[in-house]
């Protein structure tokens, strides 16, 4: 099965396609279309390019290498089997791939009971990489709009949203981390998300 990529769609599509340009010419949509046709070489291309970053995202959420590799394994199997359901009209291929991975990782911590994970010594390690400290590092020059809009939020709103997204924290974990009542955290997140959406419109 060495036909791919010779006979597949050209990897580089329209030069005006913003996310393709951002990703250095890697065409996630073409790769997913090839996966949908059953070409394992396409999945391997995706693996070679994105497995380390996907494992990094999984590690950030599940915090244990064996579990993170299970998450990446399960995500690649789901990507392979679900590639035919991916609809380019609904969003970018790269976003879809990372969403599959994120939900796998979130399911894994939910299954293990992430309350337990957070109460252990992990919490001490988590606080070393607080959301404010990571903000600058996480948001490089390629996301000026999101960065500006996050900076416009209150500190509590921003911290809550980043703890949830970057570290997979539950409402309860965020409440403990920020030493605030659960209901307060829920409303910080809702208001923060509302403000973010308006700001990014």
């Amino acid at each position: 099965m060495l036909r791919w990529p010779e006979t597949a769609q050209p990897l580089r599509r329209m030069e005006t396609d913003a996310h393709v340009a951002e990703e250095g010419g890697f065409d996630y949509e073409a790769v997913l279309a090839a996966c949908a046709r059953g070409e394992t070489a396409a999945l391997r291309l995706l693996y070679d390019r994105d497995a380390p970053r996907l494992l990094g995202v999984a590690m950030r959420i599940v915090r244990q290498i064996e579990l993170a590799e299970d998450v990446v394994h399960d995500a690649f199997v789901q990507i392979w089997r679900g590639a035919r359901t991916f609809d380019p009209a609904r969003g970018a291929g790269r976003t879809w791939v990372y969403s599959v991975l994120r939900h796998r990782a979130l399911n894994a911590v939910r299954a293990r009971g992430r309350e337990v994970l957070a109460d252990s010594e992990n919490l001490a390690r988590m606080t070393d990489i607080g959301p404010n400290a990571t903000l600058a590092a996480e948001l490089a020059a390629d996301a000026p709009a999101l960065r500006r809009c996050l900076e416009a939020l209150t500190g509590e709103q921003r911290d809550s949203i980043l703890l949830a997204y970057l570290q997979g924290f539950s409402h309860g974990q965020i409440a403990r981390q920020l030493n605030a009542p659960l209901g307060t955290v829920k409303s910080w997140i809702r208001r923060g998300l509302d403000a973010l959406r308006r700001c990014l419109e």
Partner: protein
Amino acid sequence: MNLTEPDDIQHLAAEYVLGVLTADEAAVFERRLANDGALRAAVAAWEERLSVLDRGTAPAQPRPQLWARIERTIAATRAAPSPARWPQRLWANLALWRGLAAAGVAASLLLGVYAAMRDDPRPAFTVVLAAQDRAPGWIVEISAEGDLRLTPLRDTVVGPNQALQFWTLRDPAQGPISLGLVPPDRTTRIEAARLPPVAPNQLFELTLEPAAGSPIGRPTGPILYVGRAVAVR
């Protein structure tokens, strides 16, 4: 979950993408997602907004075996099904014991895949759990140290008040031993300390049980997947 107001849709979609819904809320939400275009559009928009946050994540190097494992699972998904008889009550039915020899055939097909991947520490035993339609549904790998890994090869629908329970049968006189409840959609690991010893031809199966598991310590619901352990040489 009331999804009639645009604000509700936005909040739920955002909270789903952010990852703060509980497991139950997320499961309900995903079922709605399948039939609700407006909800899907809201989710896609939030994924697009927030996904740039992943770009700065420090990469981590997967161990070399990870790709081989993915390739194996995918190959098993495609493996040709083998004929098998399928009664609803496994433990009492002799016809099935004969039919299950065929599941061993599916497993040995997979062993060819293993043989091609020498860089991966090979398991001591594998079991292909076949579904009623005879297609491989799950793969069980048991390491030389006795640790077990159970990986789904297909989707299994489990209702809100149901659970999948994993069993093995060492000694028909003793009856099946529960290995616990397993999530239908991801890999489960069981440590050697929590497993009985495994011998060639040992039966493994997944049954559909009440959410808290079988109340009587042996299978009560339908058998969804079943197979026999094959030693890897």
